[in-house]
């Protein structure tokens, strides 16, 4: 089973990812691929750079070097031709402004018309700047076509199909469980300012469907009937599960779980293992796991990658990694000479 999953085409490819913090190299030239529909794990002692690597994959922090491709699209790398982009913000307004100025000098434009044109130029400038700040997906792809590139932000990664959970639970604590899941569904819904203001029929239909879907997701992770409970009032294990439901709400292809079993008791961990297997087998998700619980990791992973001091020191099936002397050394220290 595991061999055949690992030969699937990769869904995510990280190439020579490096991240420095001042003099400290947190992640050093890590190559990493995740085959489709696989469960791969990233382990390593504390401070090995797992979470930093994870954050780079998700666009939370920029890499110092290297790139990440997701579903054959380059998502994260060092920025390219940013100067050209900043020209793009001002150039249209500048050109039209100059044109208007020339026309005014020639006596074609004058008085109120000139004022109106000036106003339009100002609006154009503001509009372009806003576009550059908001960076909708179509704008990014358009720019990528002419070779202007900037790393995707976390919300772009979600839109592309990557969901995540956090090492220390970061739910929207004062919102109910259902509202948390609905917030996670944000990128899949289309309601906008106008449809909300007019309470349009389309939006109401969409909202009703979204609430049904949220209930389904809650049932899937085992939180059926707890939808109206405030997230902060849920027991710890349930909060972990709710976070997974929230991440699933954006219909991800790849789910990144950052220490999902931290602080769980053995029973809860067992349930989690069952849930993760179901996500892969029933929903066809690909899963990347960062975990300290070795029993969980060894039992569930198709492949394990070990990081230490920011470098990849081993990679392979659970059995291979278990026997690897460098891994044993990293965890237990070098044998006395």
């Amino acid at each position: 089973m595991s061999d055949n999953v690992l030969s699937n085409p990769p869904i995510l490819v990280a190439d020579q990812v490096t991240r420095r913090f001042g003099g400290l190299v947190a992640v050093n030239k890590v190559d990493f691929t995740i085959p489709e529909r696989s469960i791969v794990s990233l382990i390593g002692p504390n401070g090995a750079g797992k979470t930093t690597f994870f954050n780079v994959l998700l666009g939370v922090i920029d890499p110092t070097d290297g790139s990440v491709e997701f579903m054959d699209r380059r998502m994260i790398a060092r920025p390219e031709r940013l100067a050209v982009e900043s020209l793009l913000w001002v150039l249209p307004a500048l050109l039209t402004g100059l044109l208007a100025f020339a026309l005014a000098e020639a006596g074609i434009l004058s008085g109120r018309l000139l004022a109106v044109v000036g106003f339009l130029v100002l609006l154009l400038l503001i509009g372009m700047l806003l576009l550059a700040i908001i960076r909708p997906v179509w704008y990014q792809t358009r720019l990528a076509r002419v070779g202007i590139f900037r790393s995707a932000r976390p919300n772009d990664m979600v839109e592309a199909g990557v969901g995540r959970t956090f090492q220390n639970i970061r739910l929207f604590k004062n919102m109910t469980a259902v509202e948390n899941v609905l917030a996670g569904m944000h990128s899949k819904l289309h309601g906008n300012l106008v449809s909300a203001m007019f309470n349009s029929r389309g939006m109401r239909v969409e909202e009703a469907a979204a609430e049904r879907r949220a209930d389904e997701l809650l049932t899937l992770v085992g939180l059926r009937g707890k939808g109206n409970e405030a997230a902060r009032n849920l027991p710890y294990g349930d909060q972990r599960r709710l976070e997974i439901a929230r991440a699933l709400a954006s219909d991800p292809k790849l789910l990144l779980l950052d220490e999902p079993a931290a602080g769980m008791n053995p029973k809860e961990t067992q349930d989690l293992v069952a849930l993760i297997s179901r996500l892969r087998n029933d929903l066809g998700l690909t899963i990347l796991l960062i975990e300290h619980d070795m029993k969980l990791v060894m039992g569930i992973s198709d492949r394990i990658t070990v990081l230490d001091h920011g470098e990849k020191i081993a990679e392979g099936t659970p059995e291979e990694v278990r026997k690897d002397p460098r891994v044993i050394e990293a965890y237990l220290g070098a044998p006395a000479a």
Partner: protein
Amino acid sequence: MSVVTDLSPKAAGGGRMTGLRLTASRHRSWSIVLGIAVVGAILPVLAYLPPFSLAQPANAWIDGYTNAGVFVLLALGLNLVVGVAGLLDLGYAAFFAIGAYTYAYVASPFGNSVLGINLVESLGTEVGGLVFWPMLLVGALVAATFGILLGAPTLRLRGDYLAIVTLGFGEIVPIVFLNSDQLTNGTNGIGGLLRPSLPIIGSFSAINPWPYYITMLVLVSFVMIMCYRLVESRLGRAWEAIREDELAAAANGINTVTVKLLAFALGASTAGIAGVFNASKLVTVSPDQFTFIVSFTVLSMVVLGGMGNFWGVAVGAFVIYTINNVLLKTLNQFFDQTGFPILKDIDFIQLQFLLYGLALVAMMLLRPEGLFPNSRRKRELHTAITADEQDSLTTAEGTTEEGQR
């Protein structure tokens, strides 16, 4: 009143809602219209009844209600920014000013001469007053544009830093209006604005407060309905999410940039509407109407009323305005007339800010969530301790388990 104030979204969770509240949440817009119509009908009646009618004539009361309505609008708008999206804005009066000046440029002889049009002269007061209605929308749009312009550079800022920048913006705007003499007539401001008019009623007048009062009721209902619709939509959830945890919101596909800009824009547009209305009522705009005190007053209305709950905020604004502008004056009169020993020598209006400050301190200590809190906010402030305990427990658990391995 208690029925009306508890309309916050999904307050008690589907199952536990009683009949009346369930109906209210299903037909939200109608219940808002009904609620405001009832309140709007009771208030004038009160003005004619003894304790109130002794203080000042009924028309003065109704005029006062209308002015309070301006602050209700402001508080509703600021609640969207501060209460819902969690972006602390200390310069909110700037948008109020921008709305007011927008109207002044279109509806005054001076403003028209600056713009190079002559709308006021060519149309006259009666027909020209009709321009008020589209100007409500224009004022909102202009203010929203400035809201976005303010929002864009502050996107990376949070909490205190954001507050300082907005405070700066709130100072800049009135000062610009004060100092660009040729464009804004400086300290004197722009006077002679057109009063609104309607086909049958004709021009509104200073003597008859009713047309303004009813217009204000309509505006408040409209803004309130819009606020509720927005907060219960996808956008509202995104605002709540970024208020709770911005990083988690971004990691769940929410474009925090767009969402924050929209919060600023919508909050500002409400202030723009209030500004247009206020300008048309005072018939003059000048920079000293938009000082920091206005921003601060509106913010304390939001906090005292109950951040995040639109009805609570509206009531808070109304109560504070009435206390500030009617009650203190009445207390002075009352103690003067009765000749009460020490109290008759106290000028309560001078003590306004002392009382204000005391009220704020007492409120923050005794009931930090405000008079009519939003269910979520109440949860946040009253379960804070247990949640912290829970956090420390879980971290302790985590460490011991890791230690065992």
